[in-house]
């Protein structure tokens, strides 16, 4: 069996990469082309590239930038940010990106997921779900880059997305984002128990053992941001990725 995929998440803001904490306070971490070149050589399984400003500006995806980045990538890439229509998806897939990640548009217009899955196949459509923990441990889906409560329960919402044809769920914990304190395994178990499609755990990874924990909770893949770009107590920018041997030992 193929081992659990381990996926660096890169956040694009304008032309540069940033890393957030709790979906806020973006810290500049460098130029995407250079980061990708390093990740290529580190032979990462996949990449998730999320443009965190594309939705907010309303301009839609920056196709030229996406194409420029995609052409440098040796690994499969999922792109998210500002996707609002089937036409957007067609253009993005045309740049060499394997998979799109839909978030805001899925909340606003769930039918887009159905149309997109029908047109391009479920394997090309991932839905990302950003979750915050509320009082008394209740989970809630947030929209607009983690800024707006939607009232949705993540488990029910994930099931809906699966039924609409999403091929994969990118499940992000807003509270854990950038903290490197471990995934919210409770959240991961609840969602993975409710759906049959692969779930990528995201938010909180700080060490390889966290991947193991997420896998035990049912995650089919794990994503991490801070862990792959920050090093040590000063959160110094230094791109890193565990060796294949380390990953096999932790995830096989």
């Amino acid at each position, binding site marked *: 069996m193929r081992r659990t995929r381990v996926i660096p998440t890169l956040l694009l803001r304008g032309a540069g990469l940033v890393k957030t904490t709790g979906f806020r306070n973006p810290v*500049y971490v460098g130029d995407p*082309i250079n980061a990708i070149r*390093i990740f290529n050589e*580190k032979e990462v399984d996949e990449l998730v590239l999320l443009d965190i400003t594309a939705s907010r500006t309303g301009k839609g995806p920056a196709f030229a930038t996406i194409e420029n980045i995609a052409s440098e990538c040796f690994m499969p890439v999922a792109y998210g940010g500002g996707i609002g229509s089937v036409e957007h998806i067609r253009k993005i897939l045309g740049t060499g990106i394997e998979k799109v990640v839909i978030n805001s548009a899925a909340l606003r217009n769930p039918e887009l997921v159905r149309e997109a899955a029908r047109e391009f196949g479920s394997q090309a459509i991932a839905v990302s779900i950003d979750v915050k923990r509320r009082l008394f441990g209740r989970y809630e889906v947030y929209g607009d880059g983690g800024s707006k409560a939607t009232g949705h329960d993540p488990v029910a919402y994930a099931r809906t997305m699966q039924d609409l044809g999403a091929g994969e769920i990118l499940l992000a914990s807003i509270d854990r984002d950038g903290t490197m304190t471990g995934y919210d395994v409770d959240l991961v178990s609840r969602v993975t128990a409710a759906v049959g499609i692969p779930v990528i755990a995201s938010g909180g990874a700080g060490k390889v053992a966290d991947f193991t924990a997420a896998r035990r909770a049912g995650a089919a893949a794990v994503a991490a941001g801070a862990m792959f770009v920050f090093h040590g107590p000063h959160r110094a920018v230094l791109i*890193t990725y565990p060796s294949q041997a380390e990953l096999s030992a932790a995830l096989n």
Partner: protein
Amino acid sequence: MAICTRCIMDTTDPDIVFDAEGVCNHCHRYDVVARQRIIPPAERKERLARLVAEIRQAGKGKAYDCVIGVSGGVDSTYVAWVVKDLGLRPLAVHLDNGWDSELAVANIEKTLKTLGIDLYTHVIDWEEFRDLQISFLKASTPDGEVPTDHAIWALLYQIAARHGLKHIITGTNVVSEAILPEKWGYGYFDWSYVKDVHRRFGSARLSTYPHFSLLELFYYIFLRRIRMVSILNFIDYDKERAMEVLQKQLGWVYYGGKHYESIYTRFYQAYLLPKKFDIDKRKAHYSNLVLSGQMGRDEALEAMKAPVYPAELLEEDRQYALKKLELDEAAFAEIMAAPRRTFLDYRTSHGLFELAKKLVNSSRQLIG
């Protein structure tokens, strides 16, 4: 073309002069510098112990004793090794200018993890730095690496000052890098130069670019009393042996070529300098090794017959550099064809530095 009878420097350095025996000015300068700065073997143990005690004393009560720069290259990695070996508590500083190779970051990671050293990284905004690098390409001088070098020194001073530290331990050293003709590379301490080139050819605002004016340099050196320590001059620094230690103890990996851990440096030294300026920096590097007895002169001449870098990799680097700098072929061709200039064509603090050098030559270790 005349070539020195002792080292392998030649008239591709426009300022080279030979004595009656055909020995060049670089050799004579090397002899002086080596005498001044390499600590004689008999005094090493004692001088080094005194230095370490001084650094430790200055770091008392602080989180670190000193600052070291790390690039993933041989010299800086060996400094990290030596400093830890001496029992000091360094803070490592890295400048990310957007050109780190995977080997460089992997080397830094392995070194710091194995030795237990904390890291601080400054990432220069790429759009800003791209603008500055292109400015220097358009300036048409061989000093295209100055934007990186200046920022590294500025950053080291800034971080030392921020943590209240008095010592910056550097990998600069006499045995492998005392020779560099001024017209092959000038200006890494000269913010006036950087500013003037950027004013003429750049457009972005330099807001995250670390820099220091002469006044700030004065502040760091004389008011904050921050000292640059070239620790490799205190030990028997043999490059080959150093690399062996690093490979064995740290899992460090060699990248082939001096400072080739940065892709831009590789492109600049292996492609741009030879093709546009007829400068092959290996001549200076090998000459230095010849003078310090780490390489035979014949061996150096023989090594010069090999290409600077394999042609297909050179082309790969060129393509990548153009893409990253967002230069098209026409713009790059224009850069390559532009008439050669030197720093003398720009506003610099060169005259002031020459004056200062004469004045402080006796207190050399202050500025490393």
